[in-house]
């Protein structure tokens, strides 16, 4: 049938375009209460007192009293008094409480939960919970945290450190022709999925806890609720509802809101719906980790990289959440798609009193790649080479090793990607023309520039992560011969339902419509791992393929199906089998590809089963009157293995690039005492249809032997390249080197006016 490689329409497309798709806020239960969260107003302090007040009497007397006895109220004390489990969100270090108990460590930390049937009255009530604090000194930047201006977490403010040491950089500095240093910074970024976080819970001692919610990882929520309620796993059920975007923002956070809704449901005995409004979602939930990277690079006069020393620091906020893993991916990607014999990468995730930062598409790699790809333009300039010639002399090839000493065993052609990207963007001609125009006697106030970045992104969990995960996918046939794919991998817009059906249909040579992907529900589907890390297609897709092949083998083994079959024969065989033997199911468990070796102690070895490789070119104009930069054209060339669905794949790349353009030029989180000051779409600006340039996406296909039909991962890749490509282009346009994102007009004006 060959569905793979074709632009098959999205499985749930019709539901989505007609408004029939049901998101968590679209569900309602009889007797349902609404729930809200009362949060800390100080960044760090001890909770002295909590009181439930009345509005002051006004002249007109129209303000209603708050009938506090009608409210369900939950604080940390209830978790003890109700003899539930542990008051922490189970993840890596278990340091984050569900509800602050005695101390708060960041603004907007949850302290009190309220539920009531009337959501308008509930909002009034929320504003009349008063919390008194004894404030403690707080720190708000990774610099202050590193300097230990205040110790706010553990003994030293450090969540995690890594050291990657290849060769010995210290032996190299003396023999280098050039040593180039640089410092680079990136800011926080809000995921800004258009559907806010939300959950509905039913919970009582008899039935246990059931949660419906918007999420990426049902089994993360499942694990967290087991700990919170101290219940056995079969008493916890987590169901993903249609999810309106995630981008990492619904990787770990749903465990928090699901737990809150469930606590209120447990205490009230009624269903509780908790939906954040935009302001709450923006100020209280996770964002991309801010970062600072120091580079020191040794090069010889031929432009060959001799040594790279990189110091990468991320700000994790007040609790650990996923910071160690974000740090790990950022660390491994920090030296990019280049061969360098001696590399040392030191990295640190530190604590501050900001709300915890968390997963966001790219997961640390956009931060460290931004630094590297800006820095290499500087190195090239120092050596006297063009940015492209310098990179060409250092691109990694098959048989060479990465920073972690992973030998690249696939054919990688960065030169080829660069050539194609330059041709499609008309790079050389434009570079020449812009230099002429910008340097003329009467240059326009609009300066044009073009720049690029070359990079890679590893697919799947890092190192031994996939081996620990032990993901499982199932497939089940109905008597009518329809096949349901059972996986916890969620459809969050990226196309899981569609590509799984394509892969499965091709594996059996059957029609697309025969396959349905079950709604992720921990009571119904096995744990295929979280929907993160560009792993859904490459890792879970492969398991889908083997699970459905298992069904066929069972039928062949039973003698009810012959080697050569038509669709009707296959369907009939399913019915016959079920009649004769009962259920027809098959499960497939992750097996690592051969020769993948990773040393978790030394951080050496095969970090990822496969990488996607890319070269992105950005063309910009900078207005020297308003100091606004605009991206005018964008060319994205990437090698991602086999493309399963060209429309969905291009959609992933285009969406990621738009989000990265936002991160680079528009999206500025303004902090005030650790609180996001601009937590509204009115003043935190994401790109609109009028802001985005034509994004031209091209795929090179080099099938990966261990991916389904040769596919690798692509979800995060497009987040990595745009920021450095755009700032490289802005340097080309203005002659000024900017090393910090977001690059807002104010900052550009400051630097350019200073320069003039």
């Amino acid at each position, binding site marked *: 049938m060959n569905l793979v490689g074709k*632009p098959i*329409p*999205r499985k*749930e*497309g*019709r*539901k*989505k*375009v*007609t*408004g*029939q*798709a*049901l*998101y968590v*806020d*679209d569900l*309602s239960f009889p007797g349902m209460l609404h729930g809200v969260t009362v949060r800390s107003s100080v960044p760090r302090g001890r909770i002295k007192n909590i009181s439930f007040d009345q509005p002051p009497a006004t002249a*007109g007397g*129209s303000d*209603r009293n708050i009938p506090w006895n009608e409210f369900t109220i939950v604080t940390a004390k209830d978790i003890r008094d109700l003899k539930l489990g542990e008051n922490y969100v189970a993840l890596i270090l278990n340091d984050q409480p569900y509800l602050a108990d005695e101390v708060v460590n960041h603004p907007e930390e949850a302290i009190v939960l309220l539920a009531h049937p009337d959501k308008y009255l509930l909002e009034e009530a929320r504003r009349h919970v008063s919390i008194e604090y004894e404030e403690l000194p707080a720190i708000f930047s990774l610099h202050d945290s590193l300097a230990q201006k205040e110790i706010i977490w553990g003994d030293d403010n450090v969540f995690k450190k890594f050291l990657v040491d290849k060769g010995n950089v210290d032996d190299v500095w003396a023999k280098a022709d050039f040593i180039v240093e640089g410092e680079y910074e990136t800011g926080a970024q809000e*995921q*800004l*999925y*258009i*559907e*806010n976080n939300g959950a509905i819970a039913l919970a009582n001692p008899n039935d246990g806890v059931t949660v419906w919610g918007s999420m990426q990882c049902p089994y993360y929520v499942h694990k967290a609720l087991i700990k919170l309620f101290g219940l056995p796993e079969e008493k916890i059920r987590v169901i993903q509802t*249609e*999810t*309106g*975007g*995630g*981008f990492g923002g619904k990787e770990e956070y749903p465990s928090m809101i699901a737990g809150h809704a469930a606590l209120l449901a447990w205490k009230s005995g009624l269903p509780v719906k908790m939906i954040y*409004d*935009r302001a709450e979602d923006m100020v209280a939930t996770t964002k991309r980790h801010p970062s600072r990277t120091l580079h020191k690079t040794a090069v010889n006069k031929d432009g060959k990289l001799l040594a790279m020393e990189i110091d990468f620091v991320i700000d994790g906020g007040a609790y650990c959440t996923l910071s160690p893993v974000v740090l790990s991916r950022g660390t491994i990607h920090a030296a990019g798609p280049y061969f360098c014999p001696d590399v040392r990468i030191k990295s640190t995730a530190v604590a501050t009193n900001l709300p915890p930062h968390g997963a966001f598409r790219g997961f640390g790699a956009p931060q460290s790649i931004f630094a590297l790809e800006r820095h290499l333009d500087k190195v090239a300039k120092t050596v006297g080479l063009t940015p492209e010639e310098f990179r060409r002399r250092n691109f990694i090839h098959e048989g060479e090793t990465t920073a972690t000493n992973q030998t690249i065993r696939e054919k990688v052609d960065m030169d080829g990607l660069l050539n194609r990207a330059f041709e499609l963007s008309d790079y050389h001609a434009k570079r020449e023309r812009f230099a002429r125009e910008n340097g003329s006697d009467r240059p326009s106030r609009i300066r044009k520039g073009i720049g690029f970045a070359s990079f890679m992104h590893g697919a799947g969990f890092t190192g031994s992560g996939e081996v620990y995960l032990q993901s499982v996918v199932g497939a089940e046939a109905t008597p009518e011969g329809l096949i349901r794919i059972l996986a916890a991998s969620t459809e*969050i*817009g*990226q*196309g899981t339902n569609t590509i799984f059906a394509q892969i499965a249909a091709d594996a059996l040579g059957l029609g697309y419509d025969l396959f349905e992907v079950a709604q992720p529900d921990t009571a119904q589907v096995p744990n295929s791992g979280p929907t993160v890390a560009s792993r859904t297609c490459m890792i879970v897709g492969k398991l889908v393929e083997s699970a459905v092949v298992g069904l066929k083998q069972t039928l062949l083994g039973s003698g009810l199906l012959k080697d050569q079959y038509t669709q009707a024969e296959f369907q009939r065989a399913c019915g016959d089998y079920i009649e004769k033997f009962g259920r027809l199911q098959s499960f497939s468990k992750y097996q690592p590809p051969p020769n993948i070796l990773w040393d978790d102690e030394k951080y050496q070895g095969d970090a990822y089963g496969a990488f996607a490789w890319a070269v992105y070119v950005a063309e910009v104009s900078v207005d020297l009157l308003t100091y606004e930069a605009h991206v005018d054209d964008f060319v994205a060339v990437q090698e991602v293995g086999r493309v399963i669905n060209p*429309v*969905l794949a*291009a*959609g992933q790349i*285009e*969406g*990621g*690039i*738009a*989000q990265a353009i936002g991160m680079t030029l528009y999206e500025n989180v303004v902090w005030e005492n650790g609180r996001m000051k601009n937590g*509204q*779409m*009115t003043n935190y600006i*994401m790109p*609109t*249809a*009028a802001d*985005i340039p*034509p*994004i031209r996406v091209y795929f090179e296909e080099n099938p990966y032997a261990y991916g389904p039909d040769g596919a690798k991962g692509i979800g995060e890749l497009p987040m990595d390249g745009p920021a450095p490509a755009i700032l490289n282009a802005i340097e080309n346009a203005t002659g000024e080197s900017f090393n910090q994102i977001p690059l807002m007009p104010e900052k550009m004006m400051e630097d350019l006016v200073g320069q003039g």
Partner: protein
Amino acid sequence: MDTQDIYTKSTVRCTVNGESKALHVYPMERLLDVLREQLRLTGTKEGCGEGECGACSVMIDGQIVNSCLVPVAQVEGASIQTIEGIATEDQLHAVQQAFIECGGAQCGICTPGMVLAAVDLLAKNSHPSESEIRNGLAGNLCRCTGYMKIFESVVRACEK
């Protein structure tokens, strides 16, 4: 309106997707909430609650508006169309069909509003230029697609 009135429900009569409705509502309730909660027309979404994102777009007497900014008292006598009223019983609107074919919907949460914005754009201009499409949809935010496939969807819908 004095302050007492906002706590008193009254009846607002309007037409929603061609059906007459008598809504028993607080006058200052948001049209968005009345549609979603009282009429269970949950295709209209809330994204920001402040008129920035367009996820709650509906048509009132042929004008596209953000229903999160409309007090329900304002729709007395009006004709409202929501995403549920765009397709007929057995046929999708050309815009909806194009969104499916071209990948204009990803997570789907902005899609109802985006489809309405596109329908509105094409009603006023059957063959918009690229910049007219961009400006016509600039009031509707999408975080998934980067807008390219949405532009393609609108162009495809024009061809139908």
